[in-house]
């Protein structure tokens, strides 16, 4: 077992543990904070995959914006500090079964795939994935259209969110 594998296992364990806490903890703010730590773990996974840019963007977007938004939303929709009542619905066993089935199905399907246990080639020296990424995002031969569509989607979501959450009775 090499150092990289040990690090991966540690990170994966941390990530999965945090993820389990996200779905099981009773306190929603804690769940959101556990989500932050899961996301952080995922960012480290990206870093392990040599995707520095994605890792930093993960921190900026997910932790800096999305997780914060979650915490906000949790705070805005609670009646008191303590959570009352069950946090899990009555059919939780069915949910758990389906989730396990999903994992098992995915693992089964993947294990049948020829590239399953492939190993990666070393990155060539001086490999600059950021400029490649940037160029493919705005190159007409590559992904400029999805990129633009994503920006339009963001704008639409922005307008839609403001409209939906706007409280007309107060004004």
């Amino acid at each position, binding site marked *: 077992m090499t150092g990289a594998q040990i690090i*991966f296992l540690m990170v994966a364990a941390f990530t999965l543990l945090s993820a389990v806490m996200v779905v099981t903890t009773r306190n929603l703010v804690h769940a959101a904070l556990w989500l932050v730590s899961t996301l952080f773990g995922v960012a480290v996974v990206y870093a392990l995959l040599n995707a520095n840019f994605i890792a930093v963007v993960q921190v900026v977007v997910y932790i800096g914006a999305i997780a914060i938004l979650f915490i906000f939303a949790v705070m805005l929709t609670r009646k008191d500090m303590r959570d009352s009542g069950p946090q899990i619905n009555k059919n939780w066993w069915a949910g758990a079964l389906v989730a396990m089935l*999903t994992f098992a199905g995915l693992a089964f399907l993947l294990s049948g795939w020829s590239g399953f246990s492939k190993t990666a080639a070393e990155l060539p020296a001086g490999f600059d994935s950021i400029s490649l990424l940037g160029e493919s995002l705005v190159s007409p031969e590559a992904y400029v259209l999805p990129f633009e569509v994503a920006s339009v989607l963001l704008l639409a979501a922005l307008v839609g969110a403001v409209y939906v959450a706007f409280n007309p009775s107060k004004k």
Partner: protein
Amino acid sequence: MVPLSWYLLLAAALFGIGLFGVLVRRNAIAVLLGIELMLNAVNINLVSFWRYSDVLTSMSGQVFSIIVFAVAAAEVSVGLALVISVYRRRNTVIADELDMLKW
């Protein structure tokens, strides 16, 4: 070196945990948390497929994960706006109690 299968299994497990959260949590916000986990699982897959592909210069994996970021941001903003809007009208965010669409 870590084989691809480890990343894929990590992603599958994360996806399963997220799915569990989506299926069983009563609070709508917690459901959205689960969705975030699932999206992250997908992203791990995308990035690891990029890293393990034979053509590293093809950036499809990273580009798609960037687009997933955008989609996730849009999804969360609209989703949370909906949750807050529902909370204003119904005074609850428990998914089970929001069942006016039955019958």
